[in-house]
């Protein structure tokens, strides 16, 4: 591998993006430590970041075009993994069968990784098309490529993870020249369908009581069962608010997570821990770091030498911004509690690995901006 790293590669390598990603991940390790100082999640996360960084370098210094060529292979492999999850090989955690335990590799979450083959597969398909508006046939084929993994994830069932796939398809359609009127139409349809679907769902009982309460808890956590579904939202909001301007810098005595008021502090609610410990200053710095990282990635997309590269980057960007918004919105009590990890921050090998691999693709695309 070292052989293919040429002098020019080092010159054109996007150091800033890599540095930002590692910096955010390191900041995340500190927060995981703050969340549960007596547990070993933070040290495991360091190991995870190490592994992820190696994977990142491998992807970054390989030509993404060759990988995209091999996309059907990865895609099918991904689907097989997702199928295995539904078989008895799958491991049930918190009532969801989203994990797979394989010999040698250990336990991991395929739905985190399958995002990348899905992105590559879609990028391969849409990257080859000519200019012009997206046709219905193209939309259907893309939709089918997308539907296979998402459908399997829904069977687990892991609705939260499935939702994080949505921006991938949206980005693909939007940047493959879907007509603006369809976009407008989709927005209008959503504006009508979501409340209507909610109403029908509640009336027919398709949306179960606990699902309703998760949603309602956001609008009024103190009223809707503050000991039940509202509890997570209330405690997260308290934790964030408690941080104030500068946070309390790792004061474990009053820590909401150490005292077990904040649930899942090292994964889903890592942002609340960050808010408690580093305050408004730390949170805004983190959001700015994300903004900078995303800007860098988008700049890479603009400079991409081909359409497929651009699509890969933008799909990853859309996936990341969506996850950041869902996760932080949940921590701030404005979105329902859905188990979406915060990219680069939440503890978990699968998530950190897939995020670094994704960023690896971004760098790889950017590295080859002049190659044609």
């Amino acid at each position: 591998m070292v052989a293919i790293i040429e002098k020019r590669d080092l010159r054109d390598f996007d150091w800033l993006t890599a540095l930002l990603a590692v910096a955010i991940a390191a900041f995340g390790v500190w927060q995981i430590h703050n969340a549960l100082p007596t547990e070993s999640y933070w040290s495991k996360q360091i190991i995870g970041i190490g592994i992820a960084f190696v994977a990142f370098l491998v992807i970054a210094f390989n030509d993404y075009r060759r990988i995209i060529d091999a996309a059907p292979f990865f895609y099918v492999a991904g689907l097989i993994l997702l199928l295995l999850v539904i078989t008895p090989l799958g491991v049930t955690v918190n009532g969801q069968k989203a994990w797979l335990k394989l010999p040698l590799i250990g336990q991991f979450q395929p739905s985190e990784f399958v995002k990348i083959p899905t992105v590559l597969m879609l990028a391969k398909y849409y990257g080859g098309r000519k200019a012009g508006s997206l046709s219905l046939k193209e939309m259907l084929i893309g939709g089918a490529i997308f539907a296979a993994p998402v459908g399997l994830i829904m069977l687990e069932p892991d609705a939260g993870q499935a939702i994080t796939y949505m921006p991938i398809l949206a980005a693909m359609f939007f940047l493959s020249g879907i007509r603006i009127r369809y976009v407008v139409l989709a927005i209008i349809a959503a504006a009508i369908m979501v409340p209507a679907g909610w109403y029908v769902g509640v009336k027919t009982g398709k949306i179960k009581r606990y699902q309703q309460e998760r949603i309602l808890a956001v609008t009024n956590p103190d009223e809707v069962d503050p000991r039940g579904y509202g509890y997570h939202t209330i405690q997260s909001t308290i934790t964030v608010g408690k941080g104030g301007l500068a946070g309390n810098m790792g004061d474990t005595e009053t820590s909401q997570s150490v005292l077990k008021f904040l649930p899942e502090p090292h994964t889903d609610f890592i942002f609340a821990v960050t808010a408690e410990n580093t305050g408004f200053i730390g949170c805004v710095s983190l959001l700015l770091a994300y903004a900078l990282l995303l800007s860098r990635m988008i700049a890479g997309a603009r400079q991409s030498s081909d359409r497929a590269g651009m699509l890969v980057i933008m799909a990853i960007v859309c996936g990341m911004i969506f996850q950041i918004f869902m996760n932080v919105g949940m921590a701030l009590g404005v979105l329902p509690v859905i188990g979406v990890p915060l990219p680069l921050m939440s503890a978990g090998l699968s998530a950190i690995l897939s995020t670094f691999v994704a960023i690896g693709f971004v760098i790889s695309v950017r590295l080859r901006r002049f190659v044609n």
Partner: protein
Amino acid sequence: MKIGDHIQNLGLRVGVIQGLAFLLLALLGARLYYLQIIKGGYYSDRAESQRVRLIPIPAPRGAIFDRNGKLLVDSRPTYNVVLSNEPLKSVNVNDRVDDYSHGLTMDRQFVVERLNLIKQQNEFEAMVLKENADMRDIAWVESHSLEFPELRVELQPQRHYPLGTTLAHVLGYVGEISPSQLESDEFRDKGFRPGDVIGKGGLEQYYDEYLRGKPGYRKVLVDSRGRVQSELAVVPPQSGQDLVTTIDLDLQNEAEHQLATSVTKRGTIIAMDPNNGEVLAMASAPSFDPNIFVRGSSTQEGRAQIAAYWQDEKRPLYNRAIQGRYPPGSTWKIPESVAALQQGAITIQHSSLACGGGLQVGNKFIRCMGNHGSPALTPAIIHSCDGYYYRLGLKMSIEGIIKMVETFGYDHRSGIDLPNEKVPQTPKTWMPYILKHEGKWNDIRTAMAAIGQDTVVVTPISMLRAVASVGMRGKEYVPHFLKEFKPIGAVGEEGDVTYIPPRAGFSYQHPEPKLIELESDQWDMIIKGMWGVVNAGGTAGAIRMPNLEIAGKTGTAQVTEVGKDSGKNKDHSWFVSFAPAYKPDISVIALIENSGFGASNAAPAARAMYETYLAKRPAQPGQQEVAAK
């Protein structure tokens, strides 16, 4: 690839996505600003209030002593099993009933009551579930701390009455504040919480605010399940002030003994220093054990015992000395004699009235016990001549008797420092009622009122106070138990928020005695009569003591009309006295319910009190001569 080269506005579309990304991040930033900067203080407080708990440390109550420093009441440490509110919020308390009642060997019903109480009072942290926990209970709680994190064991002082039934009515007892008391004006704004222990009855109630200390607290950090993680601060409690009473325990024991060995074992004996109103002894029989109220309210047997006290026909919970109202009978003749001289119904020179063996009033003849001729005041007292007093009463008229009621203060409470004192009923209170129902006040009522019957019922304390004032030649003092409250030191550093200032000691603030005006030789006339009752062959001649000159008056108060006066309707036996006769140091009243003649029951009980008194204080030379005049 240079996106701008393509059609479909790709560059613009990427720009839209970037703009959207920034917009979403900005929205999150705005929400952060709201939560952390605008509402930061609010959420910080909320976080603190859910992790910090104040666990009260009860303050020991002040001890109570007799005048010689003998211990009457103290507090001893006991272990209580305490129920915490916070962890219970997330469980169905009904699931716990069987666990608790089985594990702590408690009455199931009581556990249910406790759980209901703590559910209603959910703003408070904790409440005692079981008092006097033994080692087995403590071990059970400790070994189930994971299963029942809401339980913990706390060391708490518990009131202890080493004397048992002795002095019980005066001391009272303590108990948990009741829900209705919590709501009442008296307690509402004083920061009481359910489960607080307050004085109930007696000195415990009257001086509660001084006896009660200020509780301290432990400030602890708890996790989301309410388990204590660490202690942040301890604010120690301030003990209550020690109370030194005027009680003389030896005299008290004698009084209790006299009642216990009396014919009916029902009655009251009070001893008082007439020079200042200090009560030396106050016994009321039958009595009760205050310890049962303190310990028993949480056990079935204890509750049964308490219920039995309430239902007992002999009324053991009732302090006969201040709550019992009895017709005074002939003891009434002493204040009446004073009033007659005051009002001029008789004079020193002309105090004789006919006995006549009784008096015909209208169509009714009311008898005298003997035929005393036409005695002067002194022999009339010595022989307790009813005929004399029928005539004296009619001469004074009912207005004169009412005036006497006012002179001696029978129309209000004595002012003793005990709660729930009853006011005597006299012709003054009966007059409006009789006039309304009978149209007029009959002479027969006046004649009966003159010998302390019919419309007169008084409390023993009011009678003692009045007669003691005769011994003091007109100075009527307020009877009281408080000698002094000891000071108590400050807790903590001055200037701290938790600082509790010291409490100063103080002694009883004597109000000015009420003055009853009479000439000195008029007093002599009455006191000589009382002296003669014991020392000159009077009605209580049998209790004469060689070394102490008692001045007294017997009374035999009819419970019902003559002829039916036997068994439980037997007359009440009174003896009210002071000694030495002409310079009294002690005044004693004895009342034995339904025992018959005053001379044969109450008077010997009073004599026993004087003997105990004398045994403690050797007779001082010179008193004999004074008495002889």
